[in-house]
């Protein structure tokens, strides 16, 4: 019995429920839908922009804006990998088959992260391509993958989504309830950043590494001096997420099921 067995079993479980495929379909439809609408509206409005606005026109960032909603859908996927087993009681059966809890959770984390990376990258590349096609059709300036800064922005967007998937699985493990974990994820991603302006200076600097807060840095091809460097941002955010996942491991090993 090896980690490969555990990983394979988790893959069978993930692929054999329809909710996995519905979630992924929803991700594609919503993600590309938002890109289509945003690119279409912005492209049509381009001629009316002021010269200053035209100077900071970033077609790449514009087409990747759908990450805002996509991260929630990927979050749901990550949460359900753990909480669906607690909700149904399946976790008992799973742990009787695989009593080494760290190995089980590691397999879930590895699988979810791998799926989130693939899905996140595919979505970001697709959103970029679709967004640029629409901008081109509207005669607005558009980008191609070979342009400076474009590829890192697109790939970085996919990595950002994978990190949120990892955060979701950590929250699911700690809270063991779908609703609780989802509410917490929404709070982290949307609500806390909204209060950023109320916090003292030093905390605002920390908050730049908060999920979504510095996200704009990753997706931009024109760096904003106020935001951390994209890779610094992704690294800092990932450290926080690793801490959440580590707490999940500790609790998962210790608690009765």
């Amino acid at each position, binding site marked *: *019995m090896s980690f490969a067995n555990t990983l394979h079993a988790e893959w*069978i*479980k993930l692929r054999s429920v329809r909710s996995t495929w519905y979630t992924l379909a929803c991700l594609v439809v919503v993600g590309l839908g938002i890109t289509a609408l945003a690119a279409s509206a912005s492209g049509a409005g381009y001629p009316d922009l002021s010269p200053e606005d035209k100077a900071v026109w970033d077609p790449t960032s514009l087409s990747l804006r759908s990450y805002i909603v996509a991260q929630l859908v990927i979050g749901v996927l990550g949460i359900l990998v753990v909480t669906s087993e607690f909700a149904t*009681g399946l976790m*008992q059966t799973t742990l009787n088959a695989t*009593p080494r809890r760290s190995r089980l959770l590691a397999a879930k984390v590895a699988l979810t992260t791998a799926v989130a990376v693939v899905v996140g990258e595919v979505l970001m590349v697709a959103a970029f391509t679709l967004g640029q096609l629409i901008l081109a059709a509207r005669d607005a300036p558009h980008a191609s993958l070979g342009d400076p800064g474009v590829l890192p922005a697109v790939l970085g967007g996919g990595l950002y989504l994978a990190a949120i998937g990892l955060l979701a699985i950590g929250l699911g493990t700690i809270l063991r309830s779908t609703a609780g974990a989802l509410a917490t994820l929404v709070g982290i991603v949307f609500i806390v950043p909204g209060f950023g302006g109320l916090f003292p200076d030093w905390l605002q600097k920390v908050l730049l590494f908060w999920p979504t807060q510095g996200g704009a840095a990753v997706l931009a091809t024109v760096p904003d001096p106020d935001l951390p460097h994209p890779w610094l941002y992704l690294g800092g955010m990932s450290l926080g997420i690793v801490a959440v996942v580590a707490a999940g491991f500790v609790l998962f090993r210790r608690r*009765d099921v």
Partner: protein
Amino acid sequence: MTRIEVRGLTKRYGSETVVDDLSFAVEPGQVTGFLGPNGAGKSTTMKMITGLALPTRGSVTIGGRRYADLPVPLTEVGALLDAGAVDGHRKAYDHLLALAVSNGIPRRRVGEVLARTGLESVAGKRTGGFSLGMRQRLGIAATLLGDPRVLIFDEPVNGLDPEGIRWIRDFMRALAAEGRAVLVSSHLMSEMAQTADHLVVIGRGRLIADTSMDALVTGGGQGTVLVRTPDRAVFARRLVAAGAAVRESLESSLIVSGLSSAEIGALAATHGAVLSELTPQRASLEDAFMELTRDSVEYQEVAR
């Protein structure tokens, strides 16, 4: 030979002691009934046996090892603690396949256990639509995947129709006859009477009895003998003189305790007394169980 050994097992939740210094063994080749009123700590004990809950004190070993240390658990222990512990959105086949793969058990075993539990026709159906009986069968199918020497079932007949109960009962017997150690919990003595060879009885987390079924019936129930004779008063005196306790019962019969029916028959022969009836009264298992657990039922009726 693989046996389960429970030693000094204790589980506390806060100040409440759910399982209290419990020790017993489950031997191969027989069905061990794990009996106790609701809330006695049976499920918690079974969770500790399979590593789902951590003991506060004490230990459980299966073939000498802790559950978590079993290299390939499903090939050594099959446990069904809750038939509802499946994701209803998943097909029966996929549920079993994931379990098999997790333990490196070949794929063909899934088909075999589905056949043995009579579920082949619903293998491709999602388990959410299964009846309770079908879910019990699916849970049992999962326990058989690794052909384990030890099987553990928590209240497997709860809520089943008579046909399902019969099926599970026969199945347990067959598994024990194959030399496996089978531990089955229940809160119904009548159920155990039909299935178990050995009984472990607990109440409020403590061991009340660890006994073979036969010993419980003959020993625990204080066997009495019903005697009917025309010269009742005379024979009653003779019985008392021989050391028995006698009380009068309905239709001029005597209920005798302290002497076996053979001894009473011999006494009658010696004194030339005519007996019209001599019947050992076997205490029912139910009586024996009630007697045993009287002090440990969680919510006892208030004495009037």
